[in-house]
């Protein structure tokens, strides 16, 4: 019989700062106190859909659920379709929110965080069984209906510690992170919610979306600052160049970063531009310095196995998970080059979906006789690129069909353009050649695209 290993909620010293709110800083003891306070008020259910928008209260909500042994259900975007699916799969689940925002109508109980804070200190640091299920991350899956990936506490702690080692985060000179990615997204969750619990960083919890927000946040933070962002935001920041003290380091993920953009960032800001490779299902698994390394270096503890065209990633406490990418591994097994992605899988705004799955959602909508999604050639290079779709749906307008799709999928996957046709260019075998689809999309008279 093996003794269950227990890992602390945070291993940071009690007085070290974890989170920086606009009005106050929260140290490890304060965070524990807030989490314990919220935990006492949570309904006694097994699953909680954490939809908090404020980064700090999202983190408190996650920790409180963990302390109560509840599994956090995480979805990047709470569309009516995803929440409805969630209510079916986890009928006992409740929604945790930090504001009275308008959620789609779903048959789930709600618990509104009171944002209470109070005295801290004197509480022993709780330790949680490494095998305790901590979260289920929902992705759009490959079949068109959502799929959940279960992550236990040990996997999350091990990954934060690995990232702390990789980015040389040390308690002596703690860095401060400004993240432009939402906390409910896997990349944002790892870098701005979980990382400060097990690596020497503090995380800014005020606004950091528009370039002016990001500039103001960077200016106000002490110590070396790390901007955790995406190619999309990086491009926006370099275009507007708000007055700011540039960050000492920038980390990008969710989409491939063009080398030219990385070079511009390094030159304009005198910074070091790093990139993380990962996916919602497996989390962060490798990193590189974009301007210097063609190859990615795996995080400590992460191992790749299987053939290069169907690789599997294994990590401490995690079951092996398939990657949707084509790789070329080096002989030592610690590095790899990215060759491409399996053609059916697309990644947009850091979210992954299968074109076949999205097409199934489209054809599942009432009034749609036939339809297909496809990706433009520049999808992996252009941060603002979108998917395209064609449909045969005589009773629909583009607007009504878009509206119906919006309820079923993450908006980043909504097609632009969506073109209505009399028939799809299917070949004799009923297949849709990509070239014929592209021709149908570009050849359609502009008027047919209007709702």
């Amino acid at each position, binding site marked *: 019989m093996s003794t269950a290993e227990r890992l602390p909620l945070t291993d940071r010293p009690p007085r070290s700062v974890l989170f920086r709110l606009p009005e106050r800083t929260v140290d490890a003891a304060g965070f524990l106190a807030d989490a314990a306070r919220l935990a006492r008020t949570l309904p006694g259910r097994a699953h909680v859909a954490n939809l908090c928008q404020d980064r700090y209260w999202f983190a408190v909500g996650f920790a409180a659920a963990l302390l109560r042994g509840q599994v956090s259900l995480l979805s990047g975007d709470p569309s009516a379709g995803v929440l409805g699916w969630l209510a079916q799969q986890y009928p006992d689940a409740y929604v945790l929110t930090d504001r009275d925002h308008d959620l789609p109508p779903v048959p789930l109980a709600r618990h509104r965080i009171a944002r209470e804070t109070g005295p801290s200190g004197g509480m022993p640091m709780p330790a949680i069984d490494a095998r305790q299920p901590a979260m289920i991350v929902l992705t759009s899956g490959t079949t068109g209906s959502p799929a959940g990936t279960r992550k236990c506490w040990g996997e999350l702690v091990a990954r934060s510690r690995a990232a702390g080692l990789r980015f040389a985060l040390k308690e002596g000179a703690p860095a401060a992170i400004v993240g432009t990615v939402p906390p409910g997204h896997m990349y944002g969750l790892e870098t701005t919610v979980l990382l400060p619990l097990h690596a020497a960083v503090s995380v800014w919890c005020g606004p950091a*979306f*528009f370039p002016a927000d990001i500039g103001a946040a960077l200016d106000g933070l002490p110590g070396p600052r790390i901007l955790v962002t995406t190619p999309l935001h990086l491009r926006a920041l370099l275009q507007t160049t708000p007055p700011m003290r540039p960050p000492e380091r920038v980390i990008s993920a969710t989409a491939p970063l063009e080398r030219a953009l990385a070079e511009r960032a390094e030159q304009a800001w005198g910074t070091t531009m790093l990139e993380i490779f990962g996916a919602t299902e497996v989390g962060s698994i490798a990193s590189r310095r974009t301007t210097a390394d063609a190859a990615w270096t795996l995080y400590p503890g992460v191992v790749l196995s299987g053939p290069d065209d169907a690789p599997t990633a294994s990590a401490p406490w995690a079951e092996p998970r398939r990657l949707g990418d084509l790789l070329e591994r080096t002989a030592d097994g610690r590095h790899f080059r990215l060759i491409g992605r399996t053609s059916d899988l697309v990644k947009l*705004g850091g979210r992954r979906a299968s074109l076949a799955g999205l097409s199934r959602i489209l054809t599942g909508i009432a009034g749609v006789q036939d339809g297909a999604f496809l990706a433009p050639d520049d999808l992996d290079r252009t941060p*603002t690129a979108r998917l395209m779709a064609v449909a045969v749906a005589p009773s629909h307008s583009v*607007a009504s069909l878009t509206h119906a799709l919006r309820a079923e999928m993450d908006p980043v996957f909504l097609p*632009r353009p969506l073109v209505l046709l009399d028939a799809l260019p299917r070949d004799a075998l009923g297949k849709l050649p990509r070239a014929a689809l592209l021709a149908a999309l570009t050849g359609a008279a502009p008027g047919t695209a209007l709702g």
Partner: protein
Amino acid sequence: MNASVSTATPSPAPDVQLPIEAEIARLIVDVLHLEIEPAAIAPEEPLFREGLGLDSIDALELALAISRQYGVTLRSDDARNAEIFASLRSLSRFIAAHRPA
């Protein structure tokens, strides 16, 4: 949205774009590559999620274009932000009030 409008100034019709709204509607359609005519954006319909169905990628693109075109910087440090982006009308009103003379 009309609560503060006095009886002296008639409130704009909910379905007719004012000149600045038509201009910003054109900007929205051009920048975001939307497949609608600018005139089809109802001034008081929501821009995000339901309504026009824009998302956060669009918000960022739109903020860049507004800053380029009108010299108006958008920030999200207050609750007004949801209000500003609520509709074409509220966004136009914000830009008109904050553009440099």
